[in-house]
Protein backbone atom coordinates (compact mmCIF):
# COMPACT_ATOMS: atom_id res chain seq x y z
CA UNK A 1 0.00 0.00 0.00
CA UNK A 2 1.33 3.45 -0.88
CA UNK A 3 1.35 5.88 1.97
CA UNK A 4 1.40 9.61 1.61
CA UNK A 5 4.59 11.28 2.71
CA UNK A 6 3.64 13.48 5.59
CA UNK A 7 4.02 17.05 4.42
CA UNK A 8 4.37 20.16 6.50
CA UNK A 9 1.40 21.98 4.98
CA UNK A 10 -1.96 20.44 4.15
CA UNK A 11 -4.69 22.32 2.29
CA UNK A 12 -8.35 21.33 2.05
CA UNK A 13 -11.00 23.28 0.21
CA UNK A 14 -14.74 22.95 -0.29
CA UNK A 15 -17.57 25.08 -1.70
CA UNK A 16 -20.62 25.23 0.54
CA UNK A 17 -24.00 26.76 -0.24
CA UNK A 18 -24.09 28.86 2.90
CA UNK A 19 -23.17 32.37 4.02
CA UNK A 20 -19.79 33.11 5.65
CA UNK A 21 -21.68 33.76 8.91
CA UNK A 22 -23.31 30.31 8.83
CA UNK A 23 -19.94 28.68 8.19
CA UNK A 24 -18.35 30.73 10.97
CA UNK A 25 -21.04 29.46 13.37
CA UNK A 26 -20.49 25.90 12.20
CA UNK A 27 -16.78 26.19 13.04
CA UNK A 28 -17.09 28.00 16.36
CA UNK A 29 -20.30 26.80 18.06
CA UNK A 30 -20.42 23.49 19.93
CA UNK A 31 -24.02 22.78 18.89
CA UNK A 32 -22.68 22.59 15.32
CA UNK A 33 -19.30 20.93 15.89
CA UNK A 34 -20.99 18.13 17.85
CA UNK A 35 -22.81 17.23 14.63
CA UNK A 36 -19.92 16.94 12.20
CA UNK A 37 -16.58 17.16 14.10
CA UNK A 38 -16.49 13.62 15.52
CA UNK A 39 -19.11 14.68 18.05
CA UNK A 40 -16.68 17.09 19.70
CA UNK A 41 -17.63 20.29 21.49
CA UNK A 42 -15.61 23.37 20.62
CA UNK A 43 -14.88 25.59 23.60
CA UNK A 44 -13.34 29.02 22.99
CA UNK A 45 -14.13 32.71 23.40
CA UNK A 46 -12.19 33.19 20.12
CA UNK A 47 -10.17 36.03 21.59
CA UNK A 48 -6.55 36.06 20.45
CA UNK A 49 -4.31 34.53 23.10
CA UNK A 50 -7.08 32.55 24.81
CA UNK A 51 -7.45 28.75 24.65
CA UNK A 52 -9.06 26.95 21.75
CA UNK A 53 -10.30 23.58 22.96
CA UNK A 54 -12.24 20.63 21.65
CA UNK A 55 -13.89 18.28 24.15
CA UNK A 56 -15.05 14.69 23.71
CA UNK A 57 -18.81 14.15 23.17
CA UNK A 58 -19.31 13.54 26.93
CA UNK A 59 -17.25 16.72 27.58
CA UNK A 60 -14.98 14.87 29.99
CA UNK A 61 -11.85 14.43 27.91
CA UNK A 62 -9.87 17.15 26.22
CA UNK A 63 -9.28 16.04 22.62
CA UNK A 64 -7.71 19.14 21.14
CA UNK A 65 -5.86 21.89 22.95
CA UNK A 66 -4.64 25.09 21.36
CA UNK A 67 -4.50 28.86 21.47
CA UNK A 68 -6.29 31.39 19.28
CA UNK A 69 -3.76 33.15 17.01
CA UNK A 70 -6.04 35.17 14.76
CA UNK A 71 -9.77 35.77 14.73
CA UNK A 72 -11.58 37.87 12.12
CA UNK A 73 -15.24 36.81 12.02
CA UNK A 74 -16.62 35.63 9.62
CA UNK A 75 -13.55 35.43 7.40
CA UNK A 76 -10.56 33.97 9.19
CA UNK A 77 -9.78 31.92 12.27
CA UNK A 78 -6.40 30.52 13.18
CA UNK A 79 -5.25 28.58 16.25
CA UNK A 80 -2.57 26.19 17.39
CA UNK A 81 -3.44 22.51 17.46
CA UNK A 82 -2.34 19.73 19.74
CA UNK A 83 -4.26 16.50 19.34
CA UNK A 84 -4.50 14.86 22.78
CA UNK A 85 -6.74 11.96 21.71
CA UNK A 86 -3.68 9.98 20.67
CA UNK A 87 -0.56 9.44 22.81
CA UNK A 88 1.83 9.90 19.91
CA UNK A 89 0.29 13.10 18.57
CA UNK A 90 -0.07 14.51 22.10
CA UNK A 91 3.69 14.25 22.57
CA UNK A 92 4.43 16.33 19.47
CA UNK A 93 4.93 20.08 19.08
CA UNK A 94 1.81 22.15 18.37
CA UNK A 95 0.89 22.75 14.72
CA UNK A 96 -1.44 25.41 13.29
CA UNK A 97 -4.96 25.25 11.85
CA UNK A 98 -6.39 28.14 9.81
CA UNK A 99 -9.91 28.47 8.42
CA UNK A 100 -10.49 30.93 5.57
CA UNK A 101 -13.99 31.79 4.37
CA UNK A 102 -14.52 33.67 1.11
CA UNK A 103 -17.99 34.55 -0.22
CA UNK A 104 -18.62 33.60 -3.86
CA UNK A 105 -21.50 34.27 -6.24
CA UNK A 106 -24.87 32.62 -5.76
CA UNK A 107 -24.89 32.32 -1.97
CA UNK A 108 -21.89 29.99 -2.02
CA UNK A 109 -18.81 30.32 0.17
CA UNK A 110 -15.37 28.92 -0.40
CA UNK A 111 -13.98 27.34 2.74
CA UNK A 112 -10.28 26.53 2.97
CA UNK A 113 -8.58 24.73 5.84
CA UNK A 114 -4.80 25.02 6.02
CA UNK A 115 -3.11 22.77 8.55
CA UNK A 116 0.55 23.77 8.64
CA UNK A 117 3.60 24.09 10.88
CA UNK A 118 3.61 20.31 10.95
CA UNK A 119 7.43 20.09 10.74
CA UNK A 120 7.72 18.74 14.25
CA UNK A 121 4.44 16.88 14.23
CA UNK A 122 4.71 14.08 11.64
CA UNK A 123 2.30 11.79 13.50
CA UNK A 124 -0.24 14.59 13.66
CA UNK A 125 0.20 15.21 9.91
CA UNK A 126 -0.57 11.53 9.23
CA UNK A 127 -3.40 11.47 11.72
CA UNK A 128 -5.39 14.50 10.50
CA UNK A 129 -5.19 13.96 6.72
CA UNK A 130 -8.27 11.77 6.44
CA UNK A 131 -9.99 13.62 9.25
CA UNK A 132 -10.20 17.01 7.55
CA UNK A 133 -11.83 15.45 4.50
CA UNK A 134 -14.41 13.76 6.66
CA UNK A 135 -15.03 16.94 8.65
CA UNK A 136 -15.42 19.23 5.62
CA UNK A 137 -17.68 16.76 3.86
CA UNK A 138 -19.76 16.48 7.04
CA UNK A 139 -19.97 20.24 7.50
CA UNK A 140 -21.10 20.71 3.89
CA UNK A 141 -23.82 18.09 4.29
CA UNK A 142 -24.95 19.58 7.59
CA UNK A 143 -25.15 23.16 6.28
CA UNK A 144 -26.75 22.27 2.97
CA UNK A 145 -29.26 19.67 4.17
CA UNK A 146 -29.57 20.29 7.90
CA UNK A 147 -28.65 16.65 8.53
CA UNK A 148 -25.32 15.22 9.68
CA UNK A 149 -23.66 12.56 7.51
CA UNK A 150 -24.92 9.14 8.48
CA UNK A 151 -22.13 6.99 9.82
Amino acid sequence: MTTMTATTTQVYQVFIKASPEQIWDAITKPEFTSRYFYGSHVDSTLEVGTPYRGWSPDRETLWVDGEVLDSDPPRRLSYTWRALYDEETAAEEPSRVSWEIEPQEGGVSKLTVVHDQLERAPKTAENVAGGWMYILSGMKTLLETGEPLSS
Partner: protein
Amino acid sequence: MNDDPVFKALADPTRRLLLDRLYERDGRSLTELESDLEMTRFGVMKHLRVLEEAGLVVTRRSGREKLHYLNPVPIRLIHDRWIDKYTERRVSALADLKNELEDTA
Protein backbone atom coordinates in the same frame (compact mmCIF):
# COMPACT_ATOMS: atom_id res chain seq x y z
CA MET B 1 -23.59 19.72 -6.88
CA ASN B 2 -21.80 19.63 -10.23
CA ASP B 3 -19.33 16.75 -10.34
CA ASP B 4 -18.67 17.00 -14.09
CA PRO B 5 -15.43 19.04 -13.82
CA VAL B 6 -14.06 16.49 -11.32
CA PHE B 7 -14.75 13.49 -13.55
CA LYS B 8 -13.47 15.37 -16.59
CA ALA B 9 -10.28 16.32 -14.79
CA LEU B 10 -9.72 12.74 -13.64
CA ALA B 11 -10.33 11.31 -17.11
CA ASP B 12 -6.86 12.29 -18.33
CA PRO B 13 -3.74 10.22 -17.53
CA THR B 14 -1.40 13.23 -17.37
CA ARG B 15 -3.66 14.95 -14.86
CA ARG B 16 -3.84 11.79 -12.77
CA LEU B 17 -0.05 11.65 -12.88
CA LEU B 18 0.12 15.25 -11.64
CA LEU B 19 -2.18 14.30 -8.75
CA ASP B 20 0.06 11.28 -8.02
CA ARG B 21 3.07 13.59 -7.83
CA LEU B 22 1.28 15.87 -5.39
CA TYR B 23 0.09 12.89 -3.40
CA GLU B 24 3.70 11.77 -3.00
CA ARG B 25 4.76 15.23 -1.96
CA ASP B 26 2.41 18.17 -1.65
CA GLY B 27 3.11 21.87 -2.13
CA ARG B 28 5.15 21.82 -5.36
CA SER B 29 5.87 24.64 -7.76
CA LEU B 30 5.12 24.50 -11.48
CA THR B 31 8.84 24.18 -12.18
CA GLU B 32 9.07 21.10 -9.96
CA LEU B 33 5.98 19.55 -11.49
CA GLU B 34 7.04 20.10 -15.08
CA SER B 35 10.50 18.61 -14.50
CA ASP B 36 8.83 15.22 -14.00
CA LEU B 37 6.95 15.34 -17.26
CA GLU B 38 7.90 15.25 -20.90
CA MET B 39 5.67 18.14 -21.74
CA THR B 40 5.94 21.87 -22.34
CA ARG B 41 5.48 24.27 -19.45
CA PHE B 42 2.38 25.54 -21.19
CA GLY B 43 0.95 22.02 -21.43
CA VAL B 44 1.50 21.37 -17.73
CA MET B 45 -0.07 24.74 -16.88
CA LYS B 46 -3.14 23.87 -18.93
CA HIS B 47 -3.58 20.57 -17.10
CA LEU B 48 -3.08 22.24 -13.73
CA ARG B 49 -5.72 24.81 -14.60
CA VAL B 50 -8.25 22.03 -15.33
CA LEU B 51 -7.38 20.40 -11.99
CA GLU B 52 -7.71 23.73 -10.22
CA GLU B 53 -11.10 24.46 -11.78
CA ALA B 54 -12.29 21.05 -10.62
CA GLY B 55 -11.11 21.88 -7.10
CA LEU B 56 -8.66 18.97 -7.09
CA VAL B 57 -5.65 21.26 -6.88
CA VAL B 58 -5.48 24.36 -4.69
CA THR B 59 -2.68 26.90 -5.08
CA ARG B 60 -1.16 29.03 -2.34
CA ARG B 61 1.44 31.73 -2.59
CA SER B 62 4.63 31.25 -0.65
CA GLY B 63 6.89 34.25 -1.16
CA ARG B 64 7.38 34.52 -4.91
CA GLU B 65 6.33 30.97 -5.59
CA LYS B 66 2.93 29.54 -6.33
CA LEU B 67 2.67 26.14 -4.69
CA HIS B 68 0.22 23.42 -5.71
CA TYR B 69 -1.62 21.26 -3.20
CA LEU B 70 -3.74 18.19 -3.79
CA ASN B 71 -7.24 18.81 -2.46
CA PRO B 72 -8.92 15.42 -1.99
CA VAL B 73 -12.25 16.83 -0.73
CA PRO B 74 -14.10 16.66 -4.11
CA ILE B 75 -13.19 12.96 -4.33
CA ARG B 76 -14.38 12.45 -0.77
CA LEU B 77 -17.71 14.08 -1.70
CA ILE B 78 -18.12 11.67 -4.63
CA HIS B 79 -17.24 8.84 -2.27
CA ASP B 80 -19.87 9.97 0.23
CA ARG B 81 -22.49 10.18 -2.50
CA TRP B 82 -22.41 6.46 -3.21
CA ILE B 83 -20.50 4.74 -0.45
CA ASP B 84 -21.72 6.36 2.74
CA LYS B 85 -25.17 4.79 2.52
CA TYR B 86 -23.70 1.31 2.81
CA THR B 87 -21.53 0.03 5.59
CA GLU B 88 -18.34 1.94 5.09
CA ARG B 89 -16.48 -0.25 7.55
CA ARG B 90 -17.13 -3.32 5.43
CA VAL B 91 -15.87 -1.60 2.29
CA SER B 92 -12.72 -0.44 4.00
CA ALA B 93 -12.17 -3.90 5.49
CA LEU B 94 -12.27 -5.30 1.95
CA ALA B 95 -9.91 -2.57 0.77
CA ASP B 96 -7.54 -3.43 3.62
CA LEU B 97 -7.69 -7.09 2.68
CA LYS B 98 -6.96 -6.25 -0.95
CA ASN B 99 -3.99 -4.12 0.09
CA GLU B 100 -2.71 -6.83 2.37
CA LEU B 101 -2.96 -9.47 -0.34
CA GLU B 102 -1.23 -7.24 -2.86
CA ASP B 103 1.55 -6.44 -0.42
CA THR B 104 2.34 -10.09 0.24
CA ALA B 105 2.06 -11.08 -3.44
